[in-house]
């Protein structure tokens, strides 16, 4: 029996790496993104738009 740890299988047990955590927080809008000058700033997500109209869910 080997005492060394088993090789980590990313496909079966994804680790919560720092990169993944940041990506998840960013996708949820919980993390500030860098503004144009590199300073911390949140950014409004552009909603669904049709012919320039910014529509709400259920409008169509």
């Amino acid at each position, binding site marked *: 029996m080997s005492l060394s740890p088993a090789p980590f299988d990313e496909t079966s047990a994804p680790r919560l790496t720092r990169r993944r955590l940041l990506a998840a927080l960013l996708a949820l809008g919980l993390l500030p993104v860098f*503004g144009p000058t590199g300073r911390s*700033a949140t950014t*409004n997500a552009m*909603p669904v738009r049709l012919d320039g109209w910014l*529509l*709400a869910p259920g409008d169509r």
Partner: protein
Amino acid sequence: MHIDLASYAARDPLADVCIIGSGAAGLTLATRLARRGRHVLLCEGGDQVFTERSQALYRGESVGDPYIPLDAARLRFFGGSTNHWGGMCRPLDAYDFTAKPADPRTAWPIGRDDLAPAYPAAADILEVSPIPPDTRIPGLALKRVHFSIGPATRLKDKYADEVARSPHLHYSRNTNLFGLETRDGRLTGAVVRDYTGGAYRLRARYVVLACGGIENSRLLLWCNRQSGGRVIRQPATLGRYWMDHPHATLGRALVFAPAALGLDASQSVFLAPTPAMLATRGVLNCGLRLHRMSPEDGEALATHLALIAPRLGERLRRQPPGSRCGVVLRAAWEQQPHPESRVELDDDDRDALGMPRSRLVWRKTALDHHTVRECVLTLNDYLRRRDIGRVQLEPWLADDTLQFPEDGELAGRHHMGGTRMADTPEHGIVDRDCRVFGQDNLYIGGSSVFPSSGHANPTLTLVQLAVRLADHLDARLD
């Protein structure tokens, strides 16, 4: 009094203050100092009325972002650009003088409190009506702001008699600055030219350059070159950090509950980011302008929206048409101050007096796009969350790429920067008193000293600065 330049120059008097330019800043300075008995020499490059030969000196090339022709964006005769301004006034916000989170280069060496004592006089000069305080709109990161609109005071008409009658104010028209003589950090003379080939040397204890937000840069660039760099010892920022207020139509909105934004009682409503929004959204200041459409245009907009969004259209059909309104969304916003936006000398094209014309390199940035986009999306978010309206963006703003309109309004013709105010000569051309670094008796009047612009029209602020400068010079003359 009007003077004959040749005979005045022949007497070689030493004026207390020589002011170059008779626009909003120059006339404010000249009249206030003359009323205190100071010997003022006021030089205007144009005439009492518009003349083509004077206006032609304002022609210049624009090689940056699309801009208004330089000879159409300003006026070169007595009264300057107050002869065509619209009269909109609002003081800068207190935080406009500070280092904003999005770009700390917005900081001024002075604060709003430094200009506050000059407000009553400036408001009287421009006939500014009382401006209501800003008001918060619950749930919206934009606040409602107000302007004094009109009467677009024409300083030419307001001060023509005083200039003609004052025994202390010596007024010379068709008198164009062409050179500055300096020795050991003091101006010793100003060389001026008329249109007939005459050149004269004028002397004054203090000289103020007040020729507008493009011409101040051009004249200083030229005079500095002619002097071998002795006028501006550290010219790294000269002509740079040039700004206007970008203007654009952003789109339209159909507002189902006009009262929520004050659109039930006002034809136009102005919104601007709160200080908290400046920080959280990383934007600069922005005036979002909502203008009510005619009822017919508003209903046409509702019809279009119903075609795009049928389920919303069903609801709109049940709503009385008179209860909603269409608005045109426009914005005039604070341009990011940065050195690449600049005025240069065009050595390939000289004016009738032999001076290189202005070449404008106007450059907007990603932050400028971010600012206006965030402001309109914040309004959209408010309208959608409360289900009280929908926004339709212009294609240039709806697209995800960085772009600005290439025609239409473009800008407010508010020429600012180029000789910015700073704490040190490495970062600007004038100090907190509008005195040129390295020159004891040379000052700049006008919006070219603005380190940043806020979103408010600049005339009130530049007249406040001129009132303050008149007090400063009067004190130094004692």
